[in-house]
């Protein structure tokens, strides 16, 4: 390994152009040798992005260098050496927003080749194109020749991030800055990108600065890691030592705040179904297909199968979790459960009444019993409406009330969710995410519902606020006999609150089991993959590298025959590509749809 010094940072200080403001980066210093991978941990707001921009001489207009030196192979890029070092060729950057990194009106390949040609004018257009094609292939983008000419909007987030990696490394940079590159991606895709990047950095001998807000992700690189806090490096040491003996309180806290799923075998207790107890909500074989116009054809449509035959029983007073990655159909399922959309076939029965059979007038009344809390508390509330008015709306839809009476009921509901009565006449503009979420809860609660559906309700909140809301939910559950359905991609949250969990993939449930069973003994390969990719610092109860998935889920327009997971499943065999497995109860309370399990049973029986 070549260990010559490539990047020297001395006392780098960056701040706003207004001199009074405190610096955003404060005396940052470090050294980087060729082929070295340097991790930087910092939560959002710590100055990671400013640091990554400062290293590439790419500060936004509102910021300036106040002091310090950034030297690339001995040339000071902020001063005299700026001519020698070319950003984009010698120092490359990959950001956290792949989808908006390229011009949407020009094909991806063309733009990468354009960049390559402008930083390496000595290579002609043909050479640039061939090199880009070859690299696209190397980062495992399928059918490179066609993808080269596709526009950015045709790329999924994961594919686009691969393309941006090609864009960064194509000019053979000596230093690569990767700023939170996996942040917008799903866990299984993020795991792939991390592995790919690690592999490329070593193979192309690039010194890499990897900035991330996730300690587990940094752990996958395992090298020297710095902790950035309020613009300063509070410590710098190898990752293993960092975990074992953190030098600062801040690091200790950061390590402690990484969610743990397997720490204790305990978990929310499963509420066993009592003999003869009727489910609160019965979802039976629900399908939902959207018609999307096929471009370039006359009046032909392709069918996007968003939800394909979901069957669930939600028991009274349980916390039911539905997990899955983006595109798996959970948003559609949410809309179906909240009856914002009606299923194409199948039925949803709530407390003995089929929702499809209700007249619109009865439906409004029935809606009291089941309410949905939307994901984004900033957009879910009507603008320019006072807090009190928003909560009243639930009641006003159903008839008129006396002013004073109305106010009394609203304030009672506000008190129940922990909102101060003074907020009644205020606009929610100045409220925090958590407070806004409480408004949503109050708005639903005033109707006295039996079932609350929570669509990613907790994922926009920080750990502390999340904890408080979870507490509130459990208090309300005890008091009002509530049943919750949590729909989320956040495995750690689900592990903390849900009693029973369903895993969704490509519009179907692949596994349903009690919390403990699902996390400690997952049955379905997809569940295993999902858990393996989950970013935690713990020892997992199974070998994660066994379940690193290849590729991306098939499009819901062309779902292959057989098991829909077969194209990515490391354990798929002949039968999987022909016959679709059914969701069956292999042992009491544990359902999974996988042919491998049949095999076990067959073996066991033999």
């Amino acid at each position, binding site marked *: 390994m070549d260990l010559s010094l490539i990047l020297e940072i001395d006392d780098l200080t960056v701040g706003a152009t207004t001199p009074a403001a405190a610096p955003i980066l404060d005396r940052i210093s470090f050294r980087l040798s060729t082929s070295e991978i340097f991790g930087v941990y910092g939560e959002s707001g710590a100055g990671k992005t400013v640091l990554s921009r400062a290293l590439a001489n790419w500060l936004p207009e509102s910021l300036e260098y106040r002091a310090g030196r950034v030297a690339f192979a001995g040339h000071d890029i902020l001063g005299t050496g700026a001519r020698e070092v070319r950003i984009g060729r010698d120092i490359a950057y990959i950001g956290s927003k792949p989808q908006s990194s390229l011009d949407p009106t020009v094909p991806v390949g063309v733009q990468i080749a*354009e960049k390559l040609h402008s930083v390496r004018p000595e290579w002609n257009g043909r050479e640039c194109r061939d090199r880009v094609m070859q690299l696209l292939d190397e980062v495992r983008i399928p059918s490179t020749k066609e993808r080269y000419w596709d526009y950015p909007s045709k790329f999924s987030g994961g594919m686009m991030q691969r393309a941006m990696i090609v864009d960064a490394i194509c000019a053979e940079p000596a230093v690569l800055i990767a700023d939170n590159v996996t942040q917008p991606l799903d866990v299984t895709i993020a795991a792939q990108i991390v592995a790919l990047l690690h592999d490329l950095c070593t193979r192309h001998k690039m010194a890499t600065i990897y900035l991330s807000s996730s300690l587990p992700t940094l752990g996958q690189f395992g090298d020297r890691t710095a902790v950035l806090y309020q613009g300063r490096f509070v410590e710098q040491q190898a990752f293993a030592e960092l975990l074992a003996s953190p030098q600062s309180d801040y690091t200790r806290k950061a390590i402690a705040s990484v969610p743990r799923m397997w720490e204790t075998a305990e978990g929310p207790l499963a509420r066993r179904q009592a003999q003869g107890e009727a489910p609160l909500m019965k979802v039976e074989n629900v399908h939902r297909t959207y018609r999307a116009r096929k471009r370039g054809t006359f009046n032909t449509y392709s069918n996007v199968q968003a939800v394909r035959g979901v069957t669930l029983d939600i028991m009274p007073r349980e916390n039911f979790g539905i997990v899955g990655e983006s595109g798996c159909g959970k948003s559609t399922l949410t809309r179906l459960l909240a009856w914002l959309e009606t299923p194409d076939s199948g039925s949803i029965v709530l407390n003995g009444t089929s929702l499809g059979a209700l007249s619109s007038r009865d439906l409004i009344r029935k809606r009291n019993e089941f309410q949905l809390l939307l994901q984004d508390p900033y957009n879910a509330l009507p603008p320019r409406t006072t807090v009190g008015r928003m909560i009243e709306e639930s009641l006003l839809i159903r008839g008129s009330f006396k002013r004073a009476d109305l106010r009394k009921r609203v304030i009672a509901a506000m008190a129940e969710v922990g909102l101060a009565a003074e907020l009644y006449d205020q606009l929610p503009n100045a409220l925090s995410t958590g407070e806004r979420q409480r408004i949503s809860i109050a708005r639903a609660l005033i109707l006295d519902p039996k079932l609350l559906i929570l669509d990613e309700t907790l994922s926009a909140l920080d750990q502390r606020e999340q904890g408080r809301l979870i507490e509130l939910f459990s208090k309300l559950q005890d008091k009002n006999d509530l049943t919750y359905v949590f729909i989320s991609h956040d495995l750690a949250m689900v592990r903390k609150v849900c009693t029973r969990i369903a895993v969704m993939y490509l519009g179907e449930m692949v596994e349903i089991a009690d919390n403990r069973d699902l996390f400690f003994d997952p049955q379905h390969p997809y569940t295993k993959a999902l858990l393996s990719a989950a970013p935690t610092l713990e020892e997992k109860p199974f070998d994660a590298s066994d379940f690193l998935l290849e590729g991306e889920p098939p499009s819901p327009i062309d779902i292959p025959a057989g098991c829909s997971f077969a194209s990515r499943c490391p354990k798929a065999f002949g039968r999987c590509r022909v016959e679709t497995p059914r969701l069956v109860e292999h042992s009491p309370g544990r359902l999974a749809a996988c042919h491998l399990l049949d095999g076990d049973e067959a073996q066991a029986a033999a």
Partner: protein
Amino acid sequence: MLILEFLVKRIAQGLLIVFITSLIIFTLLRVVPGDPVRLIVGGMAPPDVVEKVATKMGLRDPIIVQYGRYMRGLLQGDLGQSYLRPRSGMIAAGGQYVDPTKSDMAPVTDLILERLPFTLQLGGMALLFALLISFPVGIAGGLHQHRWQNALAFGMQSLFVSIPNFWLAIVLILFLSVKLKLLPALGYQGFSYVILPAVVLAVEIAPFIIRTLTTSLGEVMQAPFIDEARVRGLSRRRIVYSHALRNAAVPLVNLLGIQLSTLIGGVLVIEYIFDYPGLGNLTVVSVVGRDFPVIQGIAITTSAVFVFINIIVDLVAYLIDPRVEI
């Protein structure tokens, strides 16, 4: 294939639009007061003569019948014949009775086809001038949002938008043509007659282009991909000219499609003032003379031109930005 589908669909839609247009204009002409026959036969003619001519011309049939007759002609490419203009091209003097049912009246199609090239020439030149004025100003204003270039674009746009076109036309005729004798103004005897009316029209259109260009370019320059292009190693020239402008062009192209009717409306007034022998002039004269077939013909032609240009505009927008739904 995609483009073919688009064309088929849009042309079908366009035909529908032209059809509705013809229906609106046809009905309007017949329900608002004002009898063309009175003008044709002259103020002195006795009422029974008026009635006789009107019946003979079919103007006393129910509107739906008249419209059916008109549509039948239209499908064969026949827009009818002018009430007032004989084939020779001379306007019948007021009161002089020319029998409009005879076949010596000029066909509307010929009248329009004769004038259309002049109007297209004027419109084209005006657009060219407008683009020449507004591109430098608009681009500079968009790139430097907080500097004098933006103030210049803002001031120029506010000034231009506030000058009534006919007033500017009169002033320019007075100074450039009558006093300084730099450019000819009235009538048409060669290309130089286009310049002055085109300049007036350009001043009318330019503020819209400047405004759209400054706003959309300003917005594009804030886009993350423009910011990131810098760290990817592209030069500022490249970023601005091959990426920012390309993206800012989409709203501009759409604007041109919508502002087309302003352009056509402007053409009409300008032609009248400059006595320019185009469609606009013909419209004003025909409206004053209640020459229904000519008015209808012009309305149908302009709406067809409008539809056609808007199809092209959408196609261009799609070719620039593949995300545009077509």
